[in-house]
């Protein structure tokens, strides 16, 4: 009972402190502008810029159209159909009911909680790709969110310090060392994947804390399904609109998956910290940044 009261008080204190902090309007940093007049040279800029325009600078004839190989299209389309039915008749109704019963902030917290628990997977893969800063970021986030964020239910690392989660998995690690998609693969229930990412997903389960939580198979699956349901309850019917609006939803999802994964492997860096000089700033708290790694 005492323990419950203490945590309640802690929670109240947290809300009182964190509430106003979050409400503070952050001054937008001046947008950096790079303009290269015609005829001038800047190699680093050229490279980044041309990378981002990759296909747009290409000659008409060499537009890449095949983003991922799909030798098992027949099987994949079958699986896509099965998942589609599962989604519309089982998963989505459950997610809808759940969305109706559980208020949004609680669902966001559940999402944060799962994300925090899966830190080992992201951290280990950052390390495997020698991305020391990202590794530090994940460790930093885990410490801040597990303590200030009350066992990961909240995400002060993002909301207060602007330090965002680094999405890493073993599929990306394989990609980092040069492995391509392999070919497209639609998995039952789990959905779009590829040869590389399916392999990666299996390796990642080694670091999945749920595996070591002494759960029965059913409980383990239950936790996974709950995680997916919670994620869907926060989504705004993205899948529905794809199915409704594309000429061929299968092709659309496949192309988006291939592009998204390729982008994650050769990631464009968007992380511009929202707060500068705060004590929570990653630059101050991430030892790898002190060392300039």
């Amino acid at each position, binding site marked *: 009972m005492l323990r419950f009261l203490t945590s309640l008080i802690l929670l109240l204190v947290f809300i009182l402190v964190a509430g106003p902090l979050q409400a503070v309007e952050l001054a937008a940093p001046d*947008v950096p502008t790079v*303009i290269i007049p015609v005829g001038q040279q800047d190699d680093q800029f050229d490279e980044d810029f041309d990378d981002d325009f990759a296909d*747009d600078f290409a000659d008409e004839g060499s*537009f890449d159209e095949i983003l991922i190989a799909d030798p098992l299209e027949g099987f994949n389309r079958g699986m896509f159909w099965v998942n589609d039915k599962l989604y519309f008749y089982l998963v989505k109704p459950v997610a809808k009911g759940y969305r109706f019963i559980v208020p949004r902030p609680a669902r*966001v917290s559940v999402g944060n909680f799962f994300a925090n628990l899966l830190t080992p997977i992201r951290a280990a893969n950052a390390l495997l790709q020698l991305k020391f800063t990202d590794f530090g970021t994940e460790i930093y986030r885990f410490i801040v969110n597990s303590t200030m964020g009350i066992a990961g239910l909240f995400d002060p690392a993002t909301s207060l310090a602007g330090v965002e989660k680094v999405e890493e998995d073993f599929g990306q690690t394989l990609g980092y060392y040069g492995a391509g998609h392999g070919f497209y693969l639609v998995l039952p229930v789990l959905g779009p994947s590829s040869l590389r990412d399916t392999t990666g997903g299996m390796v990642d389960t080694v670091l999945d804390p749920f595996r070591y939580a002494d759960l029965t198979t059913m409980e383990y699956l239950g936790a996974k399904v709950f995680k997916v349901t919670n994620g869907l309850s926060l989504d705004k019917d993205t899948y529905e609109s794809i199915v409704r*609006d*594309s000429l061929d939803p299968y*092709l659309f999802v496949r192309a988006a998956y291939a592009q998204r994964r390729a982008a994650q492997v050769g990631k464009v860096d968007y992380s511009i910290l929202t707060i500068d000089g705060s004590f929570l700033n990653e630059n101050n708290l991430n030892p790898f940044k002190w060392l300039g790694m």
Partner: protein
Amino acid sequence: MKRFVFTWVFFLSLVFSAWAMPQPQEQVEGMINSVLSVLQQTGLTAEEKKSRVSGRVQGFLNMTSMSERTLGLYWQGATEEQRQHFSDLFVKVLEGTYLNRVNDYSGGTVQYLKQRVKGNKAIIDTKFVSDDLEIPVQYKMIYENDRWQVFDMVIEGVSMIRNYRSSYGEIIRKDGLDGLLALMEQKVFAMQGEHPIQ
């Protein structure tokens, strides 16, 4: 003296090539702000929002460039008539797809991270930020007909135009360009049946 004048003209033309163009980012901001101002208005029906957003956005997009890039390699082989037909349908497909989601907006702002300009192309990096999600969105722009216009949107690394190009290309290889146009016509018809756009 002559050389001096030439140098100046050369220098000025360099400066002007960068400054005479309106800033691409201003265009993107203009587009986003006008869309957000419609979405944030209370007391408008979804249909009213759709038609207002549609009217405001079109001038900011370079539809010819978008259509050309979407057909890619097949643009070259298409007749003028097919190109026109495709562009018309493609506008309607995009409208049907994205305008149907006007009601999904529930707050959120846009941060402008970086703009890069090179020649007649520009990339604007932005981030959509709401309570619990942040989505990096990149706008690719082209300078044509004295204005900067958007020709592609890259959301979390997924280029909209590439997605269409890849899936439409597959349909063209199976059913030909006319097959694709027929499918698009059906889709547009179905979209307008469900959600009429004036």
